[in-house]
């Protein structure tokens, strides 16, 4: 009966109820939309970083990270690959790369870049170069003198497809080695930095450049998309165990991207603070509305008490009223928020106007909101719990009215 009473009570003043419901609805919807946008933004940052030849797991010589030199390459590449295939699931993809610092030059210009020797086919789905939009043609797996360069670099060097570039680097024996390459294709990266930082050649060409055979400075592993971060940690541990005899370092992407990992750790706290701030803004409204509803029914509460209703029951009834308000507002807000998010999820939000800014932070130009069930749950929980908490105040007020005092009121 109390439930029914509470439900009917909130509709005694439909306009007032509608207004406070709107406040809650906008608040909850804003929480959900914003959480989805921020998740999308951060997710884009992580994806970009992983796609930038980081991968989920990486195997390198222990000294390679601090000193990326060909002398810090992996020694038994085939052995490592075989060992990895034993522990990793079948859906995992592996590729080896040679990545070394070098200098690229033509008649007019020279620049320091990173030379990347790749298996072009296996890069598809593993790093951005596999699927980057390209003018000209990609290089093949055994291309001896083909090279891919970024659009920004091509512009700086005033060069184009079919032209020659000289690549210089330090060979495995310590001598400097130079080779001429012909530009096969010009790729467009998500960011200008990547277009200027890397040039790509085939693995056999890279091996010839550094005078090494069956060599690699890293083996990268890309796991299935749905792999959770807990599973990833387990795989990293497994790889470490199985690669013990090879004296190599195994990193998960969180080890390789410490700054982003730290940001991710703070992200949830940021979101919670924002939720609470929005709640406070509507909290005043909730208290006020319930308080008004209580005060204009003073006589009624007095009467109820006079005929023997216990204060606890009154508290329950008032709390029930605000629980209904909160639940309706939350449900509407969740629904509305999800609707807006789904709309944006189709088109994405284009931050092209700030492209230099997004680039600086490694974000994508287009943000696709990501709906996370946890965020929705937390947003609703914050509003419901804190909402009930602040409703205690008007409820206790209502319970304290004494029959005699209230009967006097007109």
């Amino acid at each position, binding site marked *: 009966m109390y439930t029914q009473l509470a439900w009917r009570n909130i509709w005694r003043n439909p306009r007032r109820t509608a207004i406070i419901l709107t406040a809650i609805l*906008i608040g909850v919807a804003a929480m959900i939309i914003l959480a989805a946008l921020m998740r999308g933004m951060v997710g884009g940052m992580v994806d970009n970083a992983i796609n930038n030849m980081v991968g989920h797991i990486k195997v390198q010589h222990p000294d390679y990270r601090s000193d990326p030199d060909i002398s810090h390459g992996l020694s038994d590449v085939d052995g490592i690959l075989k060992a990895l295939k034993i522990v990793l699931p079948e859906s995992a993809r592996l590729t080896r790369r040679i990545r070394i610092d070098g200098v690229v030059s033509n008649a007019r210009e020279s620049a*320091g870049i990173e030379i990347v020797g790749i298996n072009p086919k296996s890069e598809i789905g593993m790093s951005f170069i596999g699927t980057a939009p390209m003018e000209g043609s990609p290089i093949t797996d055994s291309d001896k003198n083909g090279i891919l360069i970024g659009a920004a670099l091509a512009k700086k060097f005033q060069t184009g497809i079919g032209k020659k570039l000289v690549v210089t680097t330090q060979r495995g024996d310590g001598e400097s080695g130079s080779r001429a390459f012909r530009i096969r294709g010009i790729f467009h990266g998500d960011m200008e930095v990547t277009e200027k930082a890397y040039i790509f050649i085939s693995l056999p060409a890279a091996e010839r450049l550094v005078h090494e055979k069956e060599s690699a400075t890293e083996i990268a592993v890309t796991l299935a998309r749905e792999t959770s971060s807990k599973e990833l940690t387990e795989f990293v541990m497994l790889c470490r165990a199985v690669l013990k005899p090879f004296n190599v370092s195994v990193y998960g992407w969180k080890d390789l991207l410490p700054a982003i990992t730290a940001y991710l750790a703070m992200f949830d706290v940021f979101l919670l603070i924002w939720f609470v701030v929005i709640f406070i803004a509507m909290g005043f*409204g909730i208290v006020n509305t319930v308080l008004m509803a209580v005060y204009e029914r003073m006589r009624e509460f007095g009467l109820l008490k006079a005929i023997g209703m216990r204060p606890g029951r009154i508290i329950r009834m008032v709390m029930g009223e605000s629980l209904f308000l909160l639940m309706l507002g939350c449900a509407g807000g969740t629904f509305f928020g999800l609707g807006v998010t789904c709309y944006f999820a189709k088109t994405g939000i284009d931050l092209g106007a700030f492209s230099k800014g997004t680039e*600086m932070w490694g974000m994508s130009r287009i943000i696709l909101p990501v709906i996370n069930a946890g965020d929705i749950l937390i947003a609703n929980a914050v509003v419901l719990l804190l909402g009930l908490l602040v409703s205690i105040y008007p409820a206790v007020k209502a319970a304290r009215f004494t029959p005699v005092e209230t009967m006097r009121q007109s």
Partner: protein
Amino acid sequence: MNDLSLAWRNIWRHPRRSILTMMAIGFAAMLLVFMLSFQFGSYESMINASVKLATGHLQVQGKGYNTKPEMRNVVPTPKAIMDKLSKTQGVDSVTPRAQTFVLASSDTRIRGVLVTGVDPEREKEVFTIPSLIRNGDYLSDKAPNTVIVGALLAKRLNTGVGKELTLLGQSFDGSIAATVVTVRGIFKSGIDAVDRAAIQMLLTDFDDLFVMNGAVHTVVAIIDELSQTAPLKAALEKDPLLKPLAVLDWIDLTPGLKQSIQMDLVGGIIMYGILIIVVAFSILNTFLMAVFERTREFGVMMAIGTTPRRLVKVMLMESMFMTGVGILAGMVTGALLTVYFSHAGISMGGATDLMAQYGMSGRLYPRLSLLSLLVGPTIIGVVTFLTALFPALKIPHLKPVDAMKAV
């Protein structure tokens, strides 16, 4: 009784309700004052960090050098330009620089690096690299043929303080430039892109090595007030001495910084917009109730000859009193909060690493300014006024006879 005291007394007919409404407004005002101060403060420290690490506020370069840095595109007479800049009101310090790409090799390693020729005494005054030396010393005029090397680069070159490096590049006239230099110091800025590829040497050495004949690539200026950047740039661009050259400010030099600030600001504005809307709906009920519970009273007042216009006026005064008190309280608490944290700083905890990549320290300091103090409260004031207008405008539609019948 005049309208003002009528409105004021009306507010206190329901002290609890009025105070809650004021608190809602005050909370929003406080939050906006603090958050805007925080955002502006962090933008300023971002800009300062970037400006003092390398770019300076203003640079004078050859036309087109910024997009396409060519060895031969120079500022031919740096002396005259530096004199001109130093004498300009608002310019704090000026320093010349030249830079080019060279191959640096140690005993065992070769790397391509960007070498910058600097004037150590002038750099020390304002730029941060001299204070970021981790090993050895910063450059000195008394120690020619030395260089300082970024920490990551030093590791990749397998070199250290006191060891020798061979530099090989192309000089101004196209001939080959080669020299042997000693590493005098190792610096670590925390920004990988800088630490990985940069070395600095004396500008005089640079001049000899690359046969610059006194020419430099940029003249960098630090100015007193960040806000003076644009007017100073405009004034300098008109100067006949600088006509053949390009004057660039930090926005031209680091467009990513400006845009990420804008992006953050737009994101903030959307958040505050949502917050204000939620607050508006939160308090709309109070304003509505204030009208509806007094329908009878209004009926009586109209019947005895009060004009509806006057009733609306009193109503609006009432809500504006509440808004005013709320906003004032919010501004005071917001300002106090800001002042406190502008001394104590706010630790960014886990994001410190990320921020170091952009040259910022792990502590951010909000900065109270007239703008951050007034913008938020003004918007809240306007929105609450509109919110109050909606119920108040219902009053003229009341018919005295019907209104008096209302309960």
